């Protein structure tokens, strides 16, 4: 081909693959963050 066509396809596939990887990474991070949030300890009485 002429180089431009390949460059076009590589940029489309590269950007989409990169963004997909970023999404998967962020999804894993968000799941971990949600699990890490400690469950609030139940306090019997408020301190007077």
């Amino acid at each position, binding site marked *: 081909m002429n180089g431009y066509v390949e460059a076009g396809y590589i940029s489309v596939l590269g950007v989409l693959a990169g963004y997909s990887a970023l999404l998967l990474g962020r999804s894993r991070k*968000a799941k971990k963050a949600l699990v890490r949030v400690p469950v*609030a300890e139940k306090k019997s009485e408020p301190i007077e």
Partner: protein
Amino acid sequence: MESNRYKWVRRVLGVVALLLVAATVVLGLWVTPPDVVQGQLVRLIYVHPPVAWVAYLAYGVTSIGSILYLWKRTRNIKWDLLAASSAEVGVIFTALTLITGSIWGKPAWGVWWTWDARLTTTALLFVLYLGYLALRRVPTDSHRRAVRSGIAGLVAFVDVPIVHQSVVWWRTLHQSATVLNATLSPKIHGEMAMTLLLGFISFTFVYAWMLMHRYQIATMEQRALDVELEQLIEERQYEPEAGSALAQ
């Protein structure tokens, strides 16, 4: 946490999207013939209009999400999160539209960039939705953020029909619409048309998969924020007052 069904649908969507994109690349690069006028360059047609279409679609979903949040009867934070998720994916596809357009422009027009009406309005679209995403990062409460960005999303969407009609309204270097033209008569036929159609379908599937992922991340981040806020309020409630602590 997300349901198993949602997870399953997303996985199937991902696999189908991957297969469709692979088929588009094979047909686009090796099976379809070169064009009489454009030669090998025509192969970029199988990716450039489809990514532009997905950008329009993504911003359309952002607008619908924004309207549903702004309208009090349907107000729910999930609409705002959907709008934001779709806008982010839309920005990626707009960037791809500009990149592939520029790569096509250099051999066809002799320049990487020109201030042509179609190119300029598309660049403006990119900047408008980058602004939308930046606005969402301004620290404020969820409701205020949703209202502000909902209005911004709707204002930015005005540019979408302008981008599409720019080749009709102004004299431009950019060619007129190949498929969605005024007479709805496609200027492409045979296996070239089939490959272009496949491109539209495959990138729409990619968008759907990305949107599902991005939306899930947005809901998890929102939930983590809500839990954190609840805990802070609870901790504050049980904290001894400064005065009473000193007295003791």
